[in-house]
């Protein structure tokens, strides 16, 4: 069944583009490390193109290079939007290789990962200049008032670009998406579980509403 859904969606995307009605918005998926950005990117791509974006891991900074998939068409509630989806490395203001060693990496591996992670953060910041909108993924079990979240929200507001906040990990008992809603009341917030697909259709509706042009 998922295969048939993917085939139908892939076919409609192809017809849409063949008819020359492509209206692409370049959308970055942002957030702190381990918020579930790549899990969400994988979910979106599997649902609409049948592919995956990248691997996920409990060790922070698994994504250390931005990955981009072009021409992903999303249909929801009678609207369509074609996206270039950019899965960005986790934003951070500090990187300590000792934290990677605590996850079982050797000192050499941890230092290499830390070095690559710093380059990934720089790349993620530079991508902000080239986007039409952002999906900001927050971990609903964590405090939403982190500086990384404040910086991304502030940059989108200053650039007057559309932003959707995703309160991820609502499958976990300690998740509190209401805390995110009260922290950033001026933006649309969609509580989801990217891992289990909970509320994902609601997110697609919000994506077509906010990023459709």
């Amino acid at each position: 069944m998922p295969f048939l859904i993917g085939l139908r969606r892939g076919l409609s995307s192809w017809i849409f583009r063949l008819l020359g009605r492509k209206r692409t918005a370049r959308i970055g998926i942002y957030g702190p490390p381990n918020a579930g950005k790549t899990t969400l990117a994988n979910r979106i791509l599997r649902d609409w193109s049948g592919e995956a974006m990248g691997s996920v891991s409990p060790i922070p900074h698994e994504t250390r290079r931005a990955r981009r998939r072009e021409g992903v068409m999303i249909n929801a509630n009678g609207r369509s939007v074609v996206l270039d989806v950019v899965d960005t490395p986790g934003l951070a203001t500090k990187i300590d290789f000792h934290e990677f060693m605590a996850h079982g990496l050797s000192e050499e591996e941890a230092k290499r990962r830390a070095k690559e992670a710093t380059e990934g953060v720089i790349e993620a910041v530079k991508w902000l200049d080239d986007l039409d909108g952002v999906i900001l993924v927050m971990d609903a079990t964590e405090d939403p008032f982190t500086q990384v979240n404040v910086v991304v929200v502030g940059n989108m507001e200053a650039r007057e670009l559309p932003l959707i906040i995703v309160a991820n990990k609502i499958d976990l008992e300690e998740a509190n998406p209401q805390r995110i809603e009260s922290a950033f009341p001026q933006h649309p917030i969609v509580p989801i579980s990217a891992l289990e697909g909970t509320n994902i259709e609601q997110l697609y509706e919000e994506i077509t509403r906010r990023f459709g042009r």
Partner: protein
Amino acid sequence: MNGVEMDLVSEEMLSSLTSMEKIRYILDNVRQGKILVLERGLTPEEQSKLIEMTMSEINLDDFIGIEIESYPAKEESSLLRRLLKKPSLQTRLTMIGPARHLKTLKKDREVISALVSMR
């Protein structure tokens, strides 16, 4: 006496600097181990530039990055700005220090609690 130096930086001093001068001033001081409290913070663009430059200066043994916390910007909506439909964002008090010595304990809209360690 052992301790961590903390500088309270006035809005006047910051506004006399260009964006790059502000970021350089912050990073040079934080790399020396100081904690800075800025009376008026950085713009979102300056904050993302500060993150970018911090990453380029991380040295895995000596400097692991910064801890930065600020209150979300406030919308400044004078009558003129409302008429022009151009509200501007007013940046607010910001604390920045070396990540090795400064750790945020709790933050909400009204209070930032931080721990300064001497290790």
